[in-house]
């Protein structure tokens, strides 16, 4: 049935010219534009990371001065958080895949969708313009009163984060409306692919938490510009209040980052095991549980900040509570593979990489949730390693897996499988080399954000730096693998992975502009691999 319509032009070629991209309302094109932008900033943030690691090759000055080092880690963090990981999966893969998986022609508000992209671009430009005002050196967390007293374009960078928040909110609103209103006939909530559940849970956090960040950042700007005492004790403010406000957003934001990653992994594991997912409802509900509990754990960033022991105790308990749904997902994915028909194609290898690294990231989180242990580990490299295992080892591995999984759908091209496999191997090796040693030096007491360090830590830093080059090369190699496929790749069939969701079963690769020739009807769950043929 699909084959009959192959002669109709795909969304990539149906309209031509640069303005057909810049003013497009097509969720698929907007998704691709997001993907290209996010990857651009990923490599920029990555370049800063490489420079940081080079500086840390030796104690004292290696390539930059202390001030520049501080600016570099601030830029690395701010770019990776606000321009890469937060928009990453939802805005690029979510935009492309969500309407297709729902059997919809587009998202609910295509114009708002395009606007959210341009707000992202404007926010990104504002963030970069802070470099010309004077690069900021506050760290991406903008802690007061340091951020109020230091020079540089703090106001500009903070305003950029404020603007980017709106992009995030618009995307969230759009996805929630789309999921509620545009599901194909027959697609009940529990027939939705788990990718949708994950993106939906993410959208809830995006629209509920982001305004708090916006308010906090505005207060910070007001204090810096008008000297109204809010956070600065010299003006009668409370510096710890800023931390509360900041983490009230930024902890849920951690789940804005990881939930979409988990959502991708649910798709990959089932498809490449050709098996119904184990515990569908448990995974769906655990996404919602994570979204809700994530609002109640922010204080675990502040165990040594001077908050009371009672508050510390409550946040520790809630932090352990949020670990349970994440653990449940891991067990469910493992059980899904039991008695499956497992293919270790590139996307599945990314998922395996995720599994390995996210397990380490999650378990080391238990160290940090344990109050007395966190006192020792807080603000050391142990924490740096932990969140890189979660953010890069978790979210970014899933992101890469998702890109390699949906690449044939997005571009109509198959990439070279051998190169794909090597991409995963290089990234996983490089990643562990870079970050595992950071657990060791963190436990030994090496503080984070240090330009100088005791000589005894040098060997760890040097291993880490070598690893970072390998990691950077791995990511570069992955992108080359994909780009080469655009020119030399074989033409992709509609459903190369034998997946069971609409974007594979009901439309060509790449899809036509309006996604489907006929409104797809949903008659079964998303992972009924033995019924794919019957579905149309």
């Amino acid at each position: 049935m699909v084959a009959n319509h192959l002669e109709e032009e795909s969304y990539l070629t149906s309209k031509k010219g640069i303005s057909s991209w810049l003013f497009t309302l097509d969720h698929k094109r907007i998704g691709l534009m997001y993907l290209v932008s996010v990857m651009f900033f990923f490599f920029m943030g990555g370049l800063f990371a490489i420079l940081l690691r080079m500086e840390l090759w030796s104690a004292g000055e290696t390539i930059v001065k202390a001030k520049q080092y501080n600016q570099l880690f601030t830029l690395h963090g701010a770019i990776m958080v606000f321009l890469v990981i937060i928009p990453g999966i939802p805005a690029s893969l979510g935009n492309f895949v969500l309407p297709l998986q729902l059997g919809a022609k587009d998202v609910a508000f295509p114009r708002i969708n395009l606007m959210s992209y341009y707000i992202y671009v404007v926010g990104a430009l504002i963030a970069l313009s802070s470099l010309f005002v004077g690069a900021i050196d506050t760290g991406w967390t903008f802690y007061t009163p340091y951020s109020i007293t230091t020079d540089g374009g703090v106001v500009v960078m903070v305003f950029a984060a404020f603007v980017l928040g709106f992009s995030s909110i618009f995307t969230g609103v759009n996805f929630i409306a789309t999921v509620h209103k545009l599901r194909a006939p027959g697609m009940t909530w529990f027939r939705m692919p788990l990718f949708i559940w994950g993106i939906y849970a993410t959208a809830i956090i995006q629209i509920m938490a982001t305004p708090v960040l916006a308010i906090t950042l505005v207060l910070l700007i007001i204090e810096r510009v008008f000297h109204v005492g809010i956070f600065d004790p010299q003006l009668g403010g409370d510096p710890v209040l800023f931390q509360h406000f900041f983490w009230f957003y930024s902890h849920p934001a951690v789940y804005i980052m990881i939930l979409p990653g988990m959502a991708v992994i649910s798709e990959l594991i089932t498809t490449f095991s050709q098996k119904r997912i184990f515990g569908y409802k448990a995974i769906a509900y655990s996404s919602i549980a994570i979204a809700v509990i994530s609002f109640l754990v922010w204080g675990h960033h502040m165990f040594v900040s001077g908050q009371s022991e009672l508050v510390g105790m409550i946040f520790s308990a809630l932090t352990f509570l949020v670990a349970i749904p994440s653990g449940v997902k891991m067990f469910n994915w493992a059980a899904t593979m039991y008695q499956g028909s497992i293919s270790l194609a590139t996307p599945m290898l990314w998922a395996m990489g995720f599994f390995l690294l996210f397990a380490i990231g999650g378990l080391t989180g238990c160290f940090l949730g344990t109050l007395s242990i966190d006192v020792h580990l807080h603000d050391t490299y142990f924490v740096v390693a932990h969140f890189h295992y979660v953010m890069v080892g978790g979210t970014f591995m899933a992101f890469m897996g998702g890109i390699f999984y949906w690449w044939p759908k997005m571009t109509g091209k198959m990439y070279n499988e051998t190169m794909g496999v090597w991409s995963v191997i290089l990234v996983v090796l490089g990643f562990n080399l870079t970050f595992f040693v950071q657990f060791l030096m963190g436990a030994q007491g090496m503080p984070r954000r240090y330009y100088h360090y005791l000589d005894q830590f040098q060997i760890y830093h040097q291993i880490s730096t070598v690893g970072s080059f390998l990691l950077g090369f791995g990511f570069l190699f992955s992108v080359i693998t994909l780009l080469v496929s655009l020119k030399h790749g074989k033409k992709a069939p509609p459903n190369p992975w034998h997946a069971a969701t609409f974007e594979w079963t009901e439309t060509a690769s790449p899809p036509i502009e309006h996604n489907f020739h006929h409104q797809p009807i949903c008659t079964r769950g998303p992972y009924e691999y033995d019924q794919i043929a019957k579905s149309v």
Partner: protein
Amino acid sequence: MDSVKELLSMRLPVASTMSWLPEAASTAASSVDWLFYFLIWSCVGLFLLVVVPVIWFSIRYRRKIEGQKALSQVDHNVKIEAAWTLLPCIYLAFLFYWGFIGFVDLYTIPFNAKTLRVIGQKWNWTVQYPDDDISVSGQGAVIGVPLGQPVQLIMSSQDVIHSFFVPNFRIKQDVLPGRYSSIWFQATKIGEFPVFCTEYCGDEHSKMLAIIKVMPQDEYQEWLTKKKGEDVGLPPLELGQKLYTQKACNACHTLDGTPKIGPSFKGIYGHMTQLEGMAAVKVDDGYIRESILEPQAKIVKGYPPVMPTFKGQLSESDINALIEFIKSLK
């Protein structure tokens, strides 16, 4: 600066090269460490519990021929699911409980603790000994403490947030401007242990180091007596020179005429200096005194208004000594 270089080349005492944690040197460390090692081994176990099945499944159930179907489509099992939800709850409840107990111990200050006052400021620590009328400060300051006696630190910051971290003692506490925070320790080993600032505070954050020197009681008393005698009878010029590094003036003001974060001290005494705005002022005793105590009152043109006040940290004779020192830099 040389003291910092030396400091950076010192070693954090470690139990052995294969140890995860630095050498334990306080009473708190032993109660924290067993939990840390329990966490490591239990997490290794849990890691294997999830990763080994996944690896085994991907070998055992690897697709052999194109289009091969899964052996089954089993998608739930209430008993297993209940087990993998509830058992982790028990494990985490255990971690929570023991973590909390240890945490309460870290913050429950014994009634017989000796009090030291800690002041954090960019980028050095000052520690005052209220009972003994001495203080130590500067990058690489040596903080003498007695072995086997509880010591309480009451801490505050002069400017931004800092954090007082002693890896060997397993203690860390943020140091805030405008309020007091405290932590305590009881040293169990003789030796020198580094103190790090672990809340990012700017350019020389990573040089904001000090050393805790743990001594037996008698040696500690000698150290106190020696400290008390050190500053008495020092000629003002030498005292001023000493304060210049001890109070970390040198972090911002050079002696050779190169501008740093603040203007250099070289050759300023007795000359006019241009201020922000239209005014100029002569650098004399009154001006230097005011700049030390009320740094924001007059800002030299071209420099940021970032100097903290030293009010309450310097005695009259200290200020006089600093003036004499600056005067001597022709």
